[in-house]
């Protein structure tokens, strides 16, 4: 479904991503692992259109989307949950979700159904529907941004470090939700520093190092490779 070829991303003179090739098949959960600064988040941001692609191609179902703006990429079916839990703090939970369904705003029934569905999946959001998003706890905000990405009915969900800054119990809950989405057939590209958790739910994984893919394989292969563990996963 998603194929990235020779992707390069730069921050000025600094090459953050230096020719990365990854692929995600329909219904798969693919993890992207690696240390800080490895280029994982930059890759996701480039796929979502939030970062300019210096060179390379990004194919979604065969269509090259590398040069599209972020607002056009989400219409193609790529929804991203960024690393920093970018809730719109002064908007209510419901307003955040309505914004998530912005591309379907003319279809009120579809928007309403999508919001009801995510509120059923993330029950705490229903309880906090009229609360300002900035007043939610970290875990609740993480659930909100995932729900907000889901209401756009994406073909593929990009998750950037969903466990960042969360307590272990909340991390377990978030990964439980990710597993549930996977079981429902959602295609997911997951960037995580919590490699152990990510490999437990992933089908395949890529390991990034210094802007390049250092290794790839099934989740079990990556998990059992002690060389990779030591060098790239900080163990």
């Amino acid at each position, binding site marked *: 479904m998603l194929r990235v070829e020779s992707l390069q991303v730069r921050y000025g003179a600094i090459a953050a991503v230096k020719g990365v090739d990854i692929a995600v098949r329909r219904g798969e959960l693919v993890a992207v692992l690696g240390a800080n600064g490895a280029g994982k988040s930059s890759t996701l941001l480039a796929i*979502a*259109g*939030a970062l300019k692609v210096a060179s390379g191609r990004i194919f979604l179902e065969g269509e090259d989307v590398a040069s599209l*703006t*972020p*607002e056009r*990429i*989400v*219409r193609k079916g790529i929804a*991203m949950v*960024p690393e920093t839990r*970018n809730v*719109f*703090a*002064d*908007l209510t939970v419901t*307003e955040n979700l*309505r*914004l*998530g369904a*912005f*591309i379907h*705003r003319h279809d009120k029934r579809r928007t309403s159904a999508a919001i009801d569905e995510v509120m059923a999946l993330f029950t705490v959001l229903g309880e906090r529907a009229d609360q300002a998003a*900035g007043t939610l706890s970290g875990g609740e905000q993480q659930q909100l941004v995932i729900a*907000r990405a889901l209401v*756009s009915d994406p073909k593929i969900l990009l998750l950037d470090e969903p466990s960042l800054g969360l307590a272990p119990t909340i991390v377990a809950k978030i990964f439980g939700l990710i597993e549930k989405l996977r079981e429902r057939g959602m295609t997911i590209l997951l960037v995580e520093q919590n490699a152990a958790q990510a490999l437990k739910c992933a089908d395949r994984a890529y390991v990034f190092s210094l802007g390049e893919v250092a290794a790839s394989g099934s989740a079990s292969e990556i998990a059992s490779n002690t060389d990779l563990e030591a060098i790239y996963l900080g163990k």
Partner: protein
Amino acid sequence: MLGTIIQFVIDVLSLGSLYALMALGLVIVYGILKMVNFAYGELIMVAGYSLYLLNGSPLPWLVMAVIAIVMAILTGMLTELVAFRPVREKSVTAVLITSFAFSTLLQNAALLFISPRARTVPLPDIFTRTVEIAGVIIPLRNLLTIVCAVVLLAVFALILKRTMLGIALRAAASQFTMARMLGVPANLIISVAFAISGLFAGIVAMFWLGRIGSVVPGIGLEPLLVAFIATVIGGMRSLVGAVVGGFLLALIDVSLNYLLPQNLLQFRDAFTFTMVIVLLVLRPEGLVRGPATGQRT
């Protein structure tokens, strides 16, 4: 005594309403782009000259006013297209320069093609009428300013709260890139913000001209300065702050008008700015906090 109080309150409310609308027109763009539109004052000038050029036409004044306001809206959108869109992703300095340049262009166009001298604008009879409240003679124009501002602010607040456009504007003001990643079209939202800014400028122009009676190329300078100061003291990224700042600035201005002895009235602005400086020293971020976690576009 009661008469003075009534006069004072009406003066503060009417001037405050005008200042609040001026400030809102400026902050609606700043809130989203984090950039000041220095051509904002020229939107008021364009509305003024539109009214002047329509003078003598058989159109009712209200229709002339609507046309003048539409001209301000279109000029606002043109400002975005010419001075902001080509350079907004390059640097803040570039935008400052282009918006100053566009402002100068518009002023010089008025100088060249109309006149450097003041030109009288047509005003409705209602602006010259007065009403008596508890023995105090109040220009009807002042009451109209208050009513118009209240209605406009209420409609604007409703749009921001209840419509998808309003939610998108508030989201874009908070985190522009994230809003785009949800499908909010960047250029459209920014154009809408400039159009709303033009609408406020156009309406301000009608009441501002009602006080002055004529238009000159530099007519927009004072409203721009007022808008800027009101925005800064209210909180640069807060719509509520802009309104609060506008009324506070009016309160300071009118109070000084009432309290200063005759020989010091000419220094009223100095006193006003001194109080603004004191306010900012005590509360540099302004009176009202802006949207949380805002970021540059």
